[in-house]
């Protein structure tokens, strides 16, 4: 009786273990297959040329595979988004952690949750219909699409990530620090920006980096508002194409090495994201250590 039960228990434990490993296995599979599909491109073109040439003509003869303009597109759009979302995100995070009370706090919390839940196609549609005409009129750009519009849309999309993590890290700051500062006669605001924000900086930084990851990886919204031009972005009003857009657009008709090059683009994106993720995990670990 007892032994049969323990056999069951062991079996269940094994099943649970396998379930827990599915995500690890998926990560391994995704990595292996993306690399396996994408790496053969380097028999045709050197990695340096792929990364540092802005000549993208995969269907020409001879084909050109240079994705520098897409990398730059991703960089422009992402930093534009962070430039807008970091100040707002930090402020709202501070507000939620330290200042918000009662009903208004509750409403704001639901709002942030909803912003995180709205699908990216909705953001894209909204950006195209509502934001691009404003840009067109304000800056006299012909289409109203491009880096700036994409940055605004992405800024709204990354806002919840930054707000949430800022709030969580501010709340994790030990109470004694805050109390000590207030006891020394510092005002509430001084306590926030001289004591609390500095001691929560790793966490806040992790939130910003996480937002950056979201912005780089976002596809649909930018696809709808960035203009999708295969050129080097020259300024906030120029049309651009990001790494994700390159994959989503060309996959429709890509064949042979063109398709391979899209997986190679995927590798670049994947490596970016992995780097960002490790940075986040490092920062988070640092936050935990600082707390202790």
């Amino acid at each position: 009786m007892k032994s049969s039960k323990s056999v069951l228990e062991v079996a269940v434990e094994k099943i649970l273990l396998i379930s827990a490993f599915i995500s690890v296995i998926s990560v391994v599979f995704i990595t292996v297959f993306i690399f396996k599909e994408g790496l053969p491109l380097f028999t045709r073109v050197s990695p340096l040329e792929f990364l540092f040439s802005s000549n993208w003509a995969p269907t020409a003869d001879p084909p050109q595979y240079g994705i520098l303009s897409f990398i730059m597109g991703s960089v422009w759009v992402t930093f534009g988004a962070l430039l807008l979302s970091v100040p707002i995100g930090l402020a709202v995070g501070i507000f939620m952690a330290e200042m918000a009370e009662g009903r208004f706090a509750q409403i704001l919390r639901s709002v942030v949750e909803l912003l995180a839940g709205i699908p990216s196609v909705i953001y894209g549609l909204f950006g195209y219909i509502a934001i691009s005409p404003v840009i067109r009129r304000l800056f006299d750009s012909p289409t109203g699409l491009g880096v700036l519009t994409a940055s605004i849309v992405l800024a709204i999309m990354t806002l919840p990530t930054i707000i949430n993590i800022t709030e969580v890290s501010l709340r994790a700051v030990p109470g004694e620090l805050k109390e000590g500062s207030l006891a020394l006669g510092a005002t509430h605001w001084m306590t926030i920006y001289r004591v609390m924000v500095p001691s929560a900086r790793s966490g806040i930084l992790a939130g910003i980096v996480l937002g950056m990851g979201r912005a780089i990886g976002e596809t649909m919204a930018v696809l709808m508002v960035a203009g999708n031009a295969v050129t080097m972005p020259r300024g906030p009003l120029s049309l651009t194409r990001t790494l994700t857009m390159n994959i989503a657009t060309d996959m429709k008709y890509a064949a042979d090495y063109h398709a391979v090059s899209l997986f190679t683009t995927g590798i670049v994106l994947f490596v970016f994201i992995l780097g960002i993720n490790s940075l986040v995990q490092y920062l988070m670990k640092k936050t935990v250590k600082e707390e202790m």
Partner: protein
Amino acid sequence: MSSAEVLNPPVSKGRKEVVSSPQSRKLRMQEKVAKGIIWGLAALTIAILVWIVGYLMVKGLRYNNMTPYNVTPYVERVIDLDGTEDDLVFIINRGVREQDIEVDGLRTLFNKRRNENWGFYNEQNLRAQPVVNENAGDFSVQVKDFILAGEDLDDYRGYVEKASSWDEVISYVGGTEGAIGFLPASEAADLPRDVKVLGVRRKAIAVNPSVLMIKDSRMLRELTDKQAEKIAAGEVSNWMEVGGTDLPLTLLDSENIEVNMEALQSTEGAVMLTDYRYVAEYGVRSVPVLRHETGWNLTWHFITEAPARSGQWGGISYIIINTFFLILFTILFSAPVGVMAAIYMVEYAKQGRLMRILRMGTETLSGIPSIVFGLFGFIFFVRILGMGIGFISSTLTVTLMVLPTIIRTSEEALKSVPQSFREGSLALGATKLQTIIKVVLPAASPGILTGIILAVGRTVGETAVLIYTLGSNYDLVSGPSSSARVLSLHLYMLFSEALSFDRTFATGAVLVILILLTNFSATFMMKRMNKNSGM
């Protein structure tokens, strides 16, 4: 000084203390400004959401367009034809959602050159079936000339149903879906309930070609309905007044058509309000007139009808059902695996290397962008496992995507179950497995459910991963390998094919409503959970 103290002593005393140190006043100022800015930004966040959701709901619920037509918006329900004794009335089956039609539409409907469908006029996917009375003699000939004017056609084509009396026409129109016919006004006195009169818009603004020429880099492109009215009433004397070039406007009478048409052709800036058929007949030009069209966008029909013609006609019923199928199967696959993984990570795994690997796997998986999932799904499920672009490939890919969400929330929920529950159960002699199933899981279930609802929200909104794993067929899912569309994908397809912004918005509104629903139920669950743990 003393009088001020008498007036309000406590406040001035309090002030004095602050004023005593200019530095502290500065700090107080700083505090106020900083907090004001933060309040402002918090309000901005709310405003952004209200703007987005409000904009989409308003646009999604109602359409409000200015559509250019060759004819003015003036509707005639009873048409006075030149040369006939009786007036003319067009009737349609009640099921056709159309109030009035431009005369060009009547021509194509009766000609049936293509597989004529009401969808071209009111986005209702319904085949049009014209009917005529063969034995109507002169009247019918006149109407035929009216309908077929400008076409190289002597008689109706074969598709047009022939009836032998007016009563037969009425009963045919009443009994056939999408049918359209015509009657003399005297016969249309009391029509049965299943037949209704179709209004016709046929008045065009015919102009001398000089009106539409470019001059001083200006050109008349179109008129609004108000401007057209003013011109017809004779209140406009120069084309400049209605956005045209500097050209005097001469309004001609539409009586005695031959003489006046000649005048129209020879007089610069001449205009005549006339039947559209004469525009084609005399080879003059007409100015497009904008019609203000407004109404409900997100109607019951839109939700319940099947999509047709790439989503241009009909509704989105199949697409909503497909979305629910995708959600159902994604949760069916991901919830058990996710919850089991969380149980292992909370109840069994010891802190250490294994745990670090598991945690890193989940975090990495949650950070991977959806387009990379799409690439993986395309290469692994579609190509290597040979499942093809379709329902099963996309479900499995999305399952992997939402797994981290479910694992993380379930983990939190399991962790929040007090240790004393477990100890109590174990002390009563239950095994670990029994404890988990009978004690820990029920206690954690609201949290787990919250995670599942969040996963539903993610599934509803996901698009990039589906483009190359689910395809673009807008039919109902019929099997594991059938290509389909879900709401978000349908929205993107409508958007990228630029088929109809109204329908894109209506689809977006449905999507937003779904997201609001999932979010509110998640919040509700979370509140219940807090209540439970509070007890």
